[in-house]
Structure formats: C-alpha cells, structure tokens
C-alpha cells in the first residue's frame, strides 16, 4: 500500500512537470483535472489505511470539489473563453525544467534535515509534496497569461491537500471545510475577474495589465 501511495505522489509531481512544459491552455486544464483525480485516489487510499471520520470528511470534500465541481467549472470557463491559444513561458522550457529539478532537489535536502522528527515512512511523500508546491510557484511566476496563474494556484492548493493528507490523518473538520470553500470561492472570484479582464481587453494576456508598473 505504501508503495502505491508513493507512486501516486510521484505521478502528481510528474504531472506538475508536464504542466510546466505545456504551451496550450486547454492542455493545462486537462492535466490539472488528471492531477485532481490522482489526488483524490491518494486520499482515498489514505482513508482506507486510517479509517477516521476526519479522513472520510476529507475524501468527501475532495471528491465533490476537485473531481466534480472544479473540472466542470473549468471546462465551462475554457469553452466560454475559447481557450485554444498558445502561451509561451517567459524563459525557455529547458531552463524552466532545470529550475524545477533543482527545486525538487532543494526540497529533498530540506526535508532530509527533519527526517528524525518526521519519520522515515512519510519523508519522501513530504518532500515531494513540498516540491509540488514549489513547482506550482514556478508555474505562477513564469507565465504571462492570467488563466495559467489561476491553474498554478490550483496546483498549489492540490499540494497543500496532499501535504495535509500525508502529515495528518485528517485535519479537524473546520479546516477541511475552510480549505474546500477557499478553493471554491477563490475560483469563483477568479473566474469573475477573468471574465471582466476578457471583456475589458478582449484577451487574457497579462501584458495588457501593466499600466501600474513602475518604470525607472
């Protein structure tokens, strides 16, 4: 079972690497949906291992939000905004990939430092979850399209879900619910903004959003 869990986590990190490489928005959306599925599978396995009520709540919330509502909403949004465009990352792909690998190594080293307190069992999962959140930050920073920034945030959210499922056998219900609602409300507000930006500028390119930039 443990090796299965590890496999699922590494699959998630692999997907994040694939996302870094994508140039089409629609592919990003598809990859995110796959990642959500894998996350749900991971939490499901965890719930089988440690059957607590918090874990069941966690799996329900993840299932409803990440597998049913978010993909549907993302799909609607992508269809409405006609997202078949290409996006180029700010720096070339191989450099981006290389930075990603460095970040994974960094998080492995970082978690190696606390191996004694965290326990050997989950140390790899912990470091991979940390690495996933760093990759999400990369995804946000090095793109010039507003929608890909949102997807980066959702990947960050995924890695937090992953981390909390790894470290604990379910957080108290309040935090679980809060996290779920955060994803939902955040996504709603974000898509409202996307629609506004699309209506105002006719594009989602962030280069239009540079009026306030300070020039020296």
């Amino acid at each position: 079972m443990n090796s299965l869990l590890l496999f699922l986590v590494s699959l998630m990190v692999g997907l994040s690497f694939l996302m870094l490489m994508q140039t089409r928005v629609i592919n990003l959306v598809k990859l995110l949906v796959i990642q959500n599925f894998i996350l749900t599978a991971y939490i499901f396995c965890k719930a089988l291992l440690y059957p607590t009520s918090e874990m069941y709540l966690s799996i329900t919330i993840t299932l409803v939000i990440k597998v049913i509502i978010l993909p549907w909403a993302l799909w609607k949004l992508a269809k409405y905004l006609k997202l078949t465009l290409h996006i180029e990352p700010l720096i070339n792909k191989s450099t981006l990939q290389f930075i990603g690998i460095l970040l994974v190594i960094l998080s492995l080293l970082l978690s190696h430092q606390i191996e004694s307190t965290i326990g050997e069992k989950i140390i790899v999962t912990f470091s991979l979850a940390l690495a996933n959140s760093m990759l999400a930050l990369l995804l946000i920073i090095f793109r010039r399209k507003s929608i890909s920034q949102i997807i980066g945030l959702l990947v960050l959210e995924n890695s937090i879900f992953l981390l909390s499922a790894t470290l604990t056998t379910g957080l108290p219900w309040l935090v679980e619910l809060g996290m779920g609602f955060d994803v939902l409300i955040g996504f709603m507000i974000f898509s409202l903004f996307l629609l506004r930006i699309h209506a105002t500028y006719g594009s989602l390119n962030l280069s239009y959003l540079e009026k306030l930039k300070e020039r020296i």
Partner: protein
Amino acid sequence: MNFILLFLIPSLLAIIILPMIADRCIAAKMSFLFSVFSFLCALPLIFSVYFHDQTVFFLNQWLFCDKLGAFFIGINSFILMSTSFYSLGYLANEPPENLSKIIYRYYHTFFHLFSFGMLIVILSNNIGLMWIAMELSTIASVVLVALYQTQEALEAAWKYLILCGMGIGLALLGTVIIYFAAHDQLTNEQGLLWTALFANAPNFSAKLLAISFVFLFIGYGTKAGFFPLHNWLPDAHSEGPAPISALLSGLLLNVALLAIFRFKLILSKTSDADFASHLLLWFGFASLLFASFSLMRQRKLKRLFAYSSIEHIGLISIALGIGTPLAYFAGLLHLLMHSLSKTAAFFSSGSIIQRFHTQTISQLKGLTQSFPFAGWSLLFCCFALLGLPPSGIFFSELLLLLAILKTHALLALPLIIGLVVSFIAIFYKIQPIAFSMYPLTNDHLLKNREALTLPIMIHLFLVLLAGMIIPLLMMHPIAHVLW
C-alpha cells in the same frame, strides 16, 4: 452574555441587513450606525480584559481575547467607526456614474465583511479559523479594490488576488505543518489552539516549528507587505476608493503583523527563538530601506502613502524582531500611531482627489490656498507620519532607536538612514502640494464637509495627544524619585 459574542453581533447584523437596503443615504447611515455599535460593544470587552485581567474565551475556545487582542480590537473598531463616518461624506461626493446603485450596495456589505474578517483574525484562538478569516478578508477587500472597475483598478485587484492567494496558500501549508508538529503532544483540535500551542511550545520539535514559521511568515508577510512580496500593495492602495485604502493600510497590515507576531511568540519559547527574530529584522530592514528609496520616485499621492506604509510596517517589524519589552512597547505604540495618522492622510488625500480629479503630485499645487482644509491637514498628517515632535510617532521612533541601541547598536545606522531618506522624500513631495506660487484651483465644491473633516481632526488630535501624554507618563517614575 459573553463579551465577544456581544462585540460580534453588530458586525454580523450589518452583513445581513445592509445588502437589503436600497436607498443610498440610509445605507451609508446604517453602516455608520452599525460600526458605532460595534465600537461601543468593544468597550466592555476591552475593559474586562484590561482591568479584570482575564482572557475571555468563546465558542469552544476557538475565539479568545487577551490583552494583545484587546489592543488590536480597540484600534480596529475605532478606525472602522471613523472610516465609515468618512465614507458618508466620501460617497456623497462620488459622481453617480462612477458608482452605480448595485456597486453602492456592494460597498457597504463588503466593507463590513472585510472588517468582520479582520476582527475574527484578531480574536481567533484557532489558527485554522485565523487562516479562514484572513482568506475572507482578502476576498472581501479584493472586491472593494476593484470597485471603480477601471482598467487600473482591475489590474490592481488582479495582482492583489494572485499574490495574496499565493501567500495565503503558503500560510495554510505552515498551519498544517505546525499542526503536525503538535500532534504528538496535543490531540485533535487542541493542536490548532494558539493558547495550547503557546503553552506547550518547548515540547515541540524546534526545527519543524521553524519550517512552519517560514511558510507562515511568507504567507502572512505577503499581506503585511514586506519588501520582496510588496508588489500588490501600492497598486491596491492607490486604485481603490480612499476609505478602503485607509482600511487596507491602517488595519489590514496590522492584522497580518499580529498573525505573524502570534506565531513568533510560539517560536520564541523554543531553542530556535533567534531564527524568528532574525527573519523579522531582515525583512523589516529590507522593507524600510527599499520603501524609503522608492518614495523618491513616486508620482501619485496615494502611491506615496502606500510606500510610506511599507516603510512603517518595516519599522514595526524591526521592533518586534528585537524583542525586548521596550522594543515591543515601541512597536505597538508605533502601530497605533501609524494607523491613526495614515488613515487621516488617506482621508485628506481622498478629499483632494475628489475635488481636483487627479492624484498626480506634480499637478497638485498650493492647496493651502485653494483648498485650505485639505492642504493643511495633508501637511499635518505628513508631519505626524514623518515623526516630527510632538506627534506620537516621534516618541515611538525614539523608543525604537533606544531599544535598538541597547541590543544591536550597529543596526541603528540603517534605521537612521531609512528614516532620513523617507523624511526627505516625503517632505520634498508634499511641500509643493501645500505651498506654491501658482495654486491649482477649480470651483468644484465638496458636499458634506463635516463628515470629510471631522475624522481627520480626531485622528490627528489623538496622535498629538499621545505624543504629549506619553512623555509625561515617562516622567512619572522620575518624579517619584525626586519627591
């Protein structure tokens, strides 16, 4: 009845009732009334915490109010009251094409939602609840920043949303790690209670706490506007309506700092106590120096004040980083004085922008002649912010300098450089706005003058009073020795 419940009732009522009121005038007045009630209900809470020396708990210990919390509740509820009073005048002068009816309703509802979020952050004992409330206040304030729906406002709100969304995510990561660090000692929900964490801190793994503190610091530090993460702050402050800029600068930054401070207190009981102090000191100095040099090249009035907020947040974080009782006193005093004078500065710049329809510094000239009240009040607000005696900020900065000389004497140098540079920058920018041979004039007169002027006067008066009373309090022990 529990004092915390009593205190939260007016805000909750405001959130429920205000969306239903269609009439503009009545809605604004109701909003003011609710915040007055909120302030009045805060008084028994503050008194019971301060004078009966007891920590008030509520809702299964999820909410609590200790002396630190009571101090922040006092600042927040007072400034919310004066801001909603200022809003009466500000909204009355807003041209109707800028704010349609539906947006008007949004304004009041989200104003109270935003303030409710901040109050819950201050009161929360449960760090999960604290995180949720921070998220609530972020989302509510994003809507308020984007209120004008101009292209600039949209851009500012977008930047705010992305950066703070990222920050809030990292803060959640930190919260999860801290819960994990505590799960051996504290079962289930106890692991999220700040009081329990604080009491048991020496038993936790210091390394894990340090890692979680890094995430929490970056996360909530984004909201506090520390230097490398400050990008959203000047945009959001300059593009929103003036009362909202005042709230963002005067309250939200404080609340984020309070969250960081609470976690710093947990860490300071472990062997890694220095780590948190160093983080606060480094980021504080970086913010102070960066902001004071950036002040030089600002061309917009509200942006100038936004950078000045980064500078002051840097000062407060330095004070919290030093960590001696004198430094804590200086930091908290500075926080109070900064909130009062910065909100007053945003109020007066709001009136100026409403009258002249521009916030470009080079166009605003000689306002003490053409718009005497706003010109003079802007000048005095800047004097207060720059720490000229007898304003309270002079004293807090002096105390901070003394505290830093006692512990890290060399660090006084960058502190003085930062203060001097920002003094020169702000004075250089504000002086022509106040006095000029060719004053900018127009005959667009503002309505509802009392609502625009009274809050500024009260805030400045309080800052002045603090600056004059605190020295007397400090003389008291000396007088004891003499007689």
